[in-house]
């Protein structure tokens, strides 16, 4: 990685446990991302994904380690790092325009009303909510609410967009449409994005690199999976790509079995130099991975192996 736009350096989160001692949610978490990259974290509940995101956002503080963004250590929250919340977190007493304008005025205090409105309107148009500016959040569907959340996050032109399972509360159809929108916007604007998800297909479609976390407590970053699919992939023919199932099986296998056993099977795992895997391209598997995972990486390239 040449350009370390975001560098997470050895962060850990520990809580005092009941009856003395400490519980470690995750530790020695090293990660770096380039400018304009889309990163997805996948892991089971309780592995500390949301805590990692909150630390990146500045809403939470790590027990150890630091996060450096664009050459500066982060301290608290910042307008450079916008968050799209799982529950959209719109202010219900404000209209769509009011919610976006609130973010805009927070970033540019000296702007007059007309300028704020024009700027907010631009981002409402971008997420396809033209005509709903004066509706209140209670009048919107779940998908539209999350669009407002996206517009609000984008309107402050952040360096990074942080998303905490932004589409998990939506139905499959709406989720698909919004994934398309987010992908389009991120590609068009070169937005750096960091997203937490449970959804393997969402990660494959959106992410350039997928970060796999083992189960907590004591979770670690196990692997970085580079997405072998082309940058101009479309939702419709995603699953026809020769590497798709290799990639998908690799991630699913990790979630189903290896996330539990990873720590025991890889005693020499170095959290600073996490193995980078590129499923479907065996020659590019850099680090030593265990036997069964290599098998998982190379199923029949064109057909899914449904029976095993």
């Amino acid at each position: 990685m040449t350009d370390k736009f975001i560098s997470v350096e050895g962060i850990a989160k520990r809580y005092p446990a009941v009856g003395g001692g400490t519980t470690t949610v995750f530790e020695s978490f090293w990660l770096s991302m380039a400018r304009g990259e889309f990163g997805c974290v996948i892991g089971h509940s309780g592995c500390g994904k949301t805590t990692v995101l909150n630390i990146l956002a500045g809403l939470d503080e790590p027990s150890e380690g630091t996060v450096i963004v664009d050459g500066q250590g982060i301290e608290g929250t910042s307008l450079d790092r916008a968050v799209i919340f799982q529950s959209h977190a719109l202010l219900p007493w404000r209209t769509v325009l009011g919610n976006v304008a609130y973010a805009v005025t927070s970033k540019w205090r000296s702007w007059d009303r007309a300028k704020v409105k024009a700027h907010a309107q631009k981002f409402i148009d971008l997420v396809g909510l033209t005509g709903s500016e004066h509706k209140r959040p209670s009048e919107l569907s779940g998908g539209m609410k999350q669009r407002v959340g996206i517009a609000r996050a984008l309107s402050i032109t952040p360096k990074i967009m942080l998303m905490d399972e932004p589409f998990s509360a939506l139905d499959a159809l709406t989720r698909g449409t919004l994934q398309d929108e987010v992908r389009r916007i991120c590609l068009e604007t070169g937005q750096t994005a960091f997203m937490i998800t449970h959804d393997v297909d969402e990660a494959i479609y959106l992410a350039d690199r997928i970060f796999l976390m083992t189960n907590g407590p004591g979770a670690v970053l196990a692997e970085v999976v580079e997405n072998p699919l082309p940058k101009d992939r479309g939702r419709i023919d995603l699953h026809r790509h020769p590497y798709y199932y290799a990639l998908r099986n690799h991630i699913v296998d990790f979630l189903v079995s290896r996330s539990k056993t990873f720590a025991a099977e890889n005693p020499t795992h170095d959290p600073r130099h996490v193995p980078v895997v590129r499923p479907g391209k065996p020659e590019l598997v850099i680090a030593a991975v265990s036997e069964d995972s290599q098998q998982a990486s190379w199923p029949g390239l064109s057909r899914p192996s449904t029976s095993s």
Partner: protein
Amino acid sequence: MTSSLRFRAAIVSVVLFAAFIGIWHLATRQTASVANMSPEYAKLMGVTATQGKSAMPGPADVGAKLWEHLKRPFYDNGPNDKGLGIQLAYSIGRVGLGYLIAVFVAIPLGFMIGMSPLISKALDPFIQVLKPISPLAWMPLALYTIKDSSISAIFVIFICSVWPMLLNTAFGVASVRKEWINVARTLEVGTIRRAFTVILPAAAPTILTGMRISIGIAWLVIVAAEMLVGGTGIGYFVWNEWNNLSISNVIIAILLIGVVGMLLDQVLARFTRMVTFPE
């Protein structure tokens, strides 16, 4: 459907009211036998003894008296004979002043308690002890320290309306959704701006509910307080008319206390609806 329900409810209300008036009228008819007495003695006695009339006025007597009051609400014939409008204005003025002072104390203090767990824990024992004290128990202390009966009444209104507002404000502020606070934090909104743009609108329905409870209590307490301090006000009027044995006036006062209390509640209810947001 709804309009027909409302219509039927209105009919039932009217029927109930008519039944009440009818029973009242029958119950206060002239029934008792008239005792035989000398005319000189009869002059000393009221109509109860001389004409067998019930001391309890009938609805017609009260209606006539009420009409008299409504025609001249603001006359002033000296300390013990003022129009009902003036008496009510005194009471509403005292309630308004005491209540307003309570608003200015309770809401900022409630904000502090709601935002700071330290202050919340530190003030909790005081609030727990002071809250259940009957506001009238403060009256002697207020009279002794303030040495002015009218200001003492205002103080009593203040002390009784401060608690519901304080506790509701603290609760509303403390239970603002974490995610809304996080939105403000990620947007680097300062503490003061956050208090006004996120916490205040989010807690406003709870605060207004507390204010509505408070105005109800204040209106309950003012009648008792004015009976004690005397001089002016609807509470004093009730007691004065009791001493005059004018049950008609007492009934009219009771009716007006109810109407004014309802209006005060409706005003606060309207404010509450204005700040309530659908989720």
